């Protein structure tokens, strides 16, 4: 069995991966063109669309908005977890959207940018396999409908039940926000080469992805002080994802997308998290090897 498959299998997950050297185009993949569930990774295209609109003068990133405590989508971080009214600039909500995957901030931005505009930006960038289907609130509504429950607390207690999981539309790439590993590394390459938007906007997106706090997935595979890891995770029941860029001190930079789906239903999947880091490391090591190897490992 191939090395990447072995890593995923040992972790009890099905995995999809694509890694590419941003500057040479050298690549390696596993199921790189198969549709995958984006989950919170959709916040990266949202952020790109946000800054592209700002460049066109349609949005002022410094504009202060107030997010009321009512009607916030669920979530355990950022504004979603706060009790009171929050007033912050749109770009600071963008920071929370990426750094701690804050759903309330993401939906505030999305309401301003528009779902159609996010998809238009993706189409404009040539990312034809990527589609954003719903806001965080919309995604949660679909989950509650499919699970047949009224509130989020109840929902979070039901998603270890295989029977419930089998009904969730948001776990089916055809019916939720979706992409492919290759589309995601292409997007990251555009961001890192200042091609997804203007240089200032791309730098802002890179900064926010570098401020993401989670250490358990991509970052766990690169425990080196001199290696920078920027990324965005995606999490739903059985789904563990992260896309990001790994930058080495010698200038080597690698866009990588890892999407997994666990066979087990436990909400805590430390092995799946770690497998994302391990698989990414194996892929990047492969790309950094002095000889030109095969495009699958």
């Amino acid at each position: 069995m191939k090395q990447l498959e072995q890593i995923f299998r040992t972790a009890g997950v099905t995995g999809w991966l694509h890694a590419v050297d941003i500057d040479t185009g050298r690549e390696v993949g596993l199921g790189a063109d198969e549709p995958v569930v984006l989950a919170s990774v959709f916040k990266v295209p949202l952020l790109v669309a946000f800054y592209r609109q700002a460049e066109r003068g349609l949005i002022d990133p410094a504009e202060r908005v107030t997010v009321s405590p009512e009607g916030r989508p669920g979530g355990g971080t950022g504004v979603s977890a706060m009790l009171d009214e929050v007033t912050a600039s749109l770009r600071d909500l963008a920071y929370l959207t990426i750094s701690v995957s804050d759903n309330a901030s993401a939906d505030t931005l999305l309401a301003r940018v528009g779902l159609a505009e996010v998809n238009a930006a993706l189409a404009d960038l040539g990312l034809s396999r990527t589609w954003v289907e719903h806001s965080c609130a919309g995604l949660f509504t679909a989950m509650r409908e499919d699970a047949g429950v009224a509130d989020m607390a109840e929902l979070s207690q039901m998603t270890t039940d295989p029977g419930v999981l089998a009904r969730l539309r948001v776990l089916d790439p055809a019916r939720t926000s979706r992409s492919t590993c290759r589309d995601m590394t292409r997007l990251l390459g555009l961001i890192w080469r200042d091609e997804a938007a203007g240089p200032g906007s791309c730098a802002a997106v890179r900064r926010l992805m570098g401020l993401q706090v989670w250490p358990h997935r991509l970052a766990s595979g690169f425990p080196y002080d001199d290696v920078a890891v920027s990324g965005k995770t995606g999490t739903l029941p059985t789904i563990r994802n992260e896309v990001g860029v790994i930058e080495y001190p010698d200038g080597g930079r690698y866009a990588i997308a890892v999407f997994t789906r666990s066979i087990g239903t436990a909400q805590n999947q430390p092995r799946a998290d770690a497998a994302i880091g391990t698989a990414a490391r194996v892929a990047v090591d492969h790309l950094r090897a002095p000889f030109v190897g095969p495009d699958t490992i």
Partner: protein
Amino acid sequence: MSNTDIKLNAINVWISSLLMDLVRHLRYFVVIAEELHFGNAAARLGMAQPPLSQRVKRLEDELGVRLFDRSSRQVRLTDAGRLLLPEAREIVARTERIRELMARAVRGDTASLRAAVPPDLGASVLAALIARFRAGHPDVRLTPTEMGTSDQVDALLGGELDLGVLRHPVAAAGLGFGPILVQHPGVLLREEDELTTLATVHLADLAGRELVLPPRALEPGLHDETLAGCRRHGFVPAEVRHAVHGQFMIGLVLAGTAVALGHRTDVPGVVWRPLAGAPLAWRISTAWRGEPSGHVAGFADLTTRVLREDAGMSDEGAPPRTWVAPRPATGFLS
């Protein structure tokens, strides 16, 4: 089409009509042999007597023997006729089976069924499953294989398997599941183990021993849940050994290297004891992709019955949901 092709085609048609004709003549022969009366046979076949007599004459000419002795007023089989009768019956019956099979193929309900069971299901349960399915569905070709849960999920989703019998928890888009049955595993100890003096064993009694489990890659759900359950009840294995097949597992137990969990087995040198309070639950169910066809649904029902009746698994309804303590890093859309 070339001339040669046309000729070959004509020859094929001629041969097949001859064969059809031979089978039809053999059928007439069988009916007459059973009735030993041309009038009754003709009535049974729904035809007039003279053409039936002509057909039998033609068959006798073709084979070069007399099949019936019509010299007396009674019709009797000749020795050659008696020899032919069982062969003719066989050919007629087979031809009818072929027709029926092909008719089902046209209707699309034929069948073979590719089913997989876990390697540790147990020989007697597997035998009961296969025997009962064959008895109920003699016309369906059953291909059983042994496969771990991960492989079954891949094979079901890849269309290489019609029905799986797998361990939960399992989540995979597009799979349907039958009722989830529960088995409370006991512990397999070496005969010399001091714990065999106890009628039931507490998991905590096993503390410090090594444990044999199926490999995580094959049974991720069972592996993780079992280890978590053992730890929670005071049994932190000194080492976890992995065994795919029952014989390897038994070998490790016999060698005194480790204890194993599972159903009662009658292996010399190994003693099975229930675990006090049934702290572990292994859940198993049938699984298929999409909507199950008639055979798949039938076999799924049968499997569930066999697991209940022959493997002593109980239908405890929905598995008890364990409390999920919310954590920001594993929350939805984190």
